[in-house]
């Protein structure tokens, strides 16, 4: 669920704050309305996201925050990824480097 890059970005942005509204997350993640809305629904359905709809003046406002389960899931995912990359041996066994010589890496 979290591994998908856009959802990971959304989770990371929500992890570092208490709450943020839809517009703020659109700005921070660079996602479109539809894209963010779709990922938001999936995370909400998984129980990772708390979505609160309210009116600010006469305008609708959607406030998002991570649930306790969402925070725990993000922390576990983060630890797993750290462990994974710690366990990967340095240097390529084939002797082939991903560096194409131009300062870029190809995968």
């Amino acid at each position, binding site marked *: 669920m979290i591994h998908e890059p856009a959802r990971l970005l959304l989770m990371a942005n929500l992890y570092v704050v208490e709450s943020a509204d839809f517009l703020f997350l659109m700005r921070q993640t660079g996602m479109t309305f539809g894209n963010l809305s779709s990922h938001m629904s999936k995370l909400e359905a998984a129980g990772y996201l708390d979505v609160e709809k309210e009116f600010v003046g006469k305008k609708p406002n959607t406030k998002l925050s991570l649930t306790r389960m969402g925070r725990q899931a993000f922390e576990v995912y983060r630890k797993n990824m750290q462990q994974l*990359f710690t366990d990967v041996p340095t240097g390529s066994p084939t002797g082939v480097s991903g560096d194409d010589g131009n300062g870029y890496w190809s995968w």
Partner: protein
Amino acid sequence: MSGDFDLDGIERRAYLTYNEDGLLDIITGFMMAFIGYYVLSKVDVPFAPFLAIFGPAVWASLKKAVTEPRIGQVKFGPGRRSRQQKAIMIFAVVVNVLMVLSFFVDTGSILGPWGATLSTYGVILVGSGVVSLILFTIGHFNEVSRFKGYAAISVPMFVVSHFLADPALDLFEKLALVLIPLGLLMMAYGIVTLWRFVRKYPKLEDVEIDA
């Protein structure tokens, strides 16, 4: 993917976006220029409570009217709030120290030889030690590096004021001669920053952001 996330970087980026609007520069600059004007005009009206209330209130209103419709609302975590509380504490301590110092300068001999030094070099000592420190503190705790720049600019301004200002002026009038141009400079830079912010983040239509 590196296997670790720069969460501090993400949080900092969110915070800086929220403070990219130049409103802090405009409000702080206005307050400084106003204090300078007030001192030079010698109007006998207690303005401090008005500034203390209206400054933050105007800032909060502008934030709601200008910033939030463009980049949205965010509530930062306890770590960030604690940094801001520290800044406010330091600000309050420095302002109180300034008030006590000004009392001693006014009453003359209590500080003895220190009082004489303070009277002679007060614009440099109080200016750099208090005004520049306040600007640096705001810049440091709010992570708005422009304010460290204002602090750096203010020091030579206080030195110049000490040597060039009319010797007949008292300490506060010499300080005011720096506060006005410095405040106007901050307001001007704040307005430029705000103009850039408004261009970078245009208002989105309600239909685009209502989830």
